[in-house]
């Protein structure tokens, strides 16, 4: 099924975009909304993301990574560009990064996924925050290091540790969301 979807995508068949939207629309919207911070802008970014996916479908190469990774990277870059052109990048970017990194998350998780929350909370706060900053907020590791004053090497090690811990439980996370 995935093969057929990829084929449709590569031949710029709009059916592929509908299917991708059904499968990943909500996950991508979650990522985009966290980066841009406003629902209207997030909507525009998600629309642009799928248009880009459709236009550049033939450039997707399954040997270089999974479909979702490809899409989420388009979404993240589109969202970062949007915040830059909406020029609230400088105000938002640096003020958020310190507060986000230091304060515990009050509840960005979907509340109905109680099982997920418990599982993700197994992941130490400082590691989880780091994944969120890089994955959901679009910061580079260098930016996180600069702003927090934590050495780049430590950031890289922590990020790897965080993802390794996520891996232990990812299927539980996936399962409890169904």
């Amino acid at each position, binding site marked *: 099924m995935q093969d057929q979807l990829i084929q449709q995508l590569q031949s710029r068949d709009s059916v592929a975009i509908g299917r991708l939207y059904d499968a990943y629309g909500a996950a991508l919207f979650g990522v985009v909304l966290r980066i841009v911070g406003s629902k209207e802008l997030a*909507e525009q970014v998600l629309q642009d993301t799928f248009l880009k996916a459709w236009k550049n479908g033939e450039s997707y190469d399954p040997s270089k990574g999974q479909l979702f990774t490809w899409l*989420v990277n388009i979404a993240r870059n589109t969202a970062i560009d949007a915040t830059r052109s909406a020029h609230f990048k400088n105000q938002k970017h640096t003020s958020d990064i310190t507060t986000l990194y230091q304060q515990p998350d009050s509840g960005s998780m979907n509340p109905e996924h109680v099982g997920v929350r418990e599982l993700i909370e197994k992941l130490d706060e400082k590691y989880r925050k780091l994944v969120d900053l*890089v994955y959901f907020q679009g910061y580079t590791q260098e930016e996180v290091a600069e702003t927090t004053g934590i050495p780049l090497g430590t950031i*890289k090690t922590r990020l790897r540790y965080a993802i390794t811990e996520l*891996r232990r439980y990812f299927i539980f996370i996936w399962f409890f969301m*169904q």
Partner: protein
Amino acid sequence: MNFESYIRSGILESYALGLGTPAERAEVERNIAQYPVLAAELKAIEDSLAAYAQAHAIAPPDGLKSKILEKIESEMKAPTPEPTPDPPSSEGGSGGGWTLKSLLPWFIAGIAVALGVALWTSKTEYREQQALMRTMEQQLKDCKSDSMLQQQLRQDMAFINDPATRRIDMLGDVGGQLSVYLNASQQAVFATTARMKPLPANQDYQLWVIVEGNPNPVPLEVFQPGSDPLALVPVSFREKVQAFAVSLEPKGGSPDGKPTQVLMIGALS
């Protein structure tokens, strides 16, 4: 290449997160194309991140999907030239009107083809019937000589068909397919393991249960994919099971009592 230290460097995580310089990214692409170990590692990282994103999913506003699809439709109509339909074959096209004479060769050819097909079909059918007869004879022989196996199959069938037996299909097809049969009144659990993917020599699968009141998965049997698709493999019974899981482990099972990488999970509904 030292895979351990390459993986530990965190470069694959950076790649999956869309980070790194073009040169670094190109290097990762070369390496994953060359070494399946690294490709598998990258896939596991991507899966975890995707699951994390899915866990934080927020439904986009209604109507956005149709808006996107409409936009695509309108762009599709605009610039790209429509592929021109194949021109009709010119041969015989200009004369207009079929004559009996011109149709005759086609008619004869048609009859010849139909006859050929009919003959070929009946011959094939005969051959198929013969083959079926042979298979049935063989099966009859097997049945007679394999009464032990028959006995076993009957027992298994009785277990599976017992109204108290619950079948739990594992979700997540990373490792293949696996079903667990649990019968609490008989305190018996079996699994079908033949459709799991083969593993390299230094790895094993391991079954786990999640029981009520204990947040940590409890380790059960370490196993390899079975060879007999009909075989029911015995599994330890635990009370108050909520879910089963299968993990990928180093040879011999989990080294620290926690699942190393959970591949599949199935809950009692």
